[in-house]
């Protein structure tokens, strides 16, 4: 990051190659659209470029980029809500599951996505960061801008809701 702040293009590229795939995974699951996810990731790096002089030597870059990306995702949903998108449009926006997966897995993954979609945004982003991105609660708290305790409560509620939504399936598996 220090080399990038000093103007090294190679360092910028290295950072991009390291963090873009992580951010793509993060935003794809939230937005369920490849195109939108790519746009948000590019916008994240554009904002990072503008904010590079705020970076303090020795601090971690990952929470930075994740916070910027999550802010952009939230802004996207807010704009979308404002434009009063119909539920039909939302459905068409959703990215299709990859064709190479068996039908049963695609169905199960669709159900899981639907369950995740039903969570409030604040809980969903905690699940995304804690479970899927494997970030510890302390880091999740920094990214979403709340206390670690509040993040734990959100996660607990989200897992409980998800479990409730998926109970029948889980029992079915057993």
């Amino acid at each position, binding site marked *: 990051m220090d080399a990038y702040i000093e103007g090294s*293009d190679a360092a*910028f*590229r290295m950072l*991009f*190659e390291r963090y*873009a*795939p992580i951010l*793509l995974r993060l935003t*794809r*699951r939230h937005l369920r659209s*490849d195109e939108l996810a*790519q746009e948000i*990731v*590019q916008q994240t*790096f*554009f*904002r990072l*470029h*503008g*904010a590079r*002089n*705020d*970076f303090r030597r020795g601090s971690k870059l990952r*929470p930075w980029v994740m*916070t*910027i990306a*999550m*802010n952009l995702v*939230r*802004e996207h949903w*807010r704009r979308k809500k404002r*434009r009063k998108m119909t539920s039909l449009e939302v459905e068409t926006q959703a990215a299709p*599951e*990859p064709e190479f*997966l068996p039908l049963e*897995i695609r169905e*199960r*993954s669709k159900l*899981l*996505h639907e369950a995740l979609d039903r969570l409030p945004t604040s809980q969903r982003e905690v699940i995304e960061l*804690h*479970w*899927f991105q*494997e970030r*510890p*609660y302390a880091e999740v708290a920094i*990214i*979403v*801008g*709340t206390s670690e305790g509040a993040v*734990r409560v959100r*996660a*607990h509620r989200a*897992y409980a809701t*998800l*479990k409730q939504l*998926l109970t029948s*399936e*889980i029992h079915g*598996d057993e």
Partner: protein
Amino acid sequence: MTNGSDRGGPDAGLGERLRELEPVDRPDNGELIDRMFTNVKSKCDKSDKTIAGFFRSRSTTVRRLIVLAVFAVLAVAGWSSFPLVDESLRDPEWLATLVAFFVLLIVAMMMVTRPVHRPELPRWQVACLVCIALGATVLAAFWPTAGAHAATHEHSSGMMAGACMGFGLMLGVPVYALLRLVDRGNAFGSLVAAAAAGLAGNFVLKAHCAIDTTGHVLLGHASVAVLFVVGLGLVHRWIPSK
């Protein structure tokens, strides 16, 4: 993948189920990353060549100092070009109103220049600031200073209200433009900048306008803040950006 049970995550059954989502992730090929990087790089290079890009890439401390310096220059220019209200009108209420406008202006400036790597402010905080800013300008109309009525008899109230409104709007525009120039794209940045512009206009009008009747302040001063918030802030928010 997180071991949920060790770290306060879901139990084993739900954990297994959540793991199923992982195969859905597509492998990110180098070509896609290359293309995205090229886009970002060209956008960054283009932005670096613009004035806005230059200001936005300064550190947060520098951006705030730039804004404060411009505020100071505007204040000194106003002070030297136009006389302050008569000394008899400079009572504690007048001073308190100016201080309140200034504090709100600084809070708005801090919100607009908030670093983007920090979580965005909750919507209620932005709404609170805008409401307090508008409320303060309206409240000032119902808090007349001593001896204000004497001054009003000399002027045609309606015409003077129009002049004050025009002057206030004119003063707010550079403040709005400056704040947008240093805003790195915070959510609600335009709305907060509009409130700040309205406050700046009201601050100057309060300092220099001797007419302090409720009608005049409502029509000529408070309307500046309302017009900024409604006209610039909300319209800007509702126009879809790129």
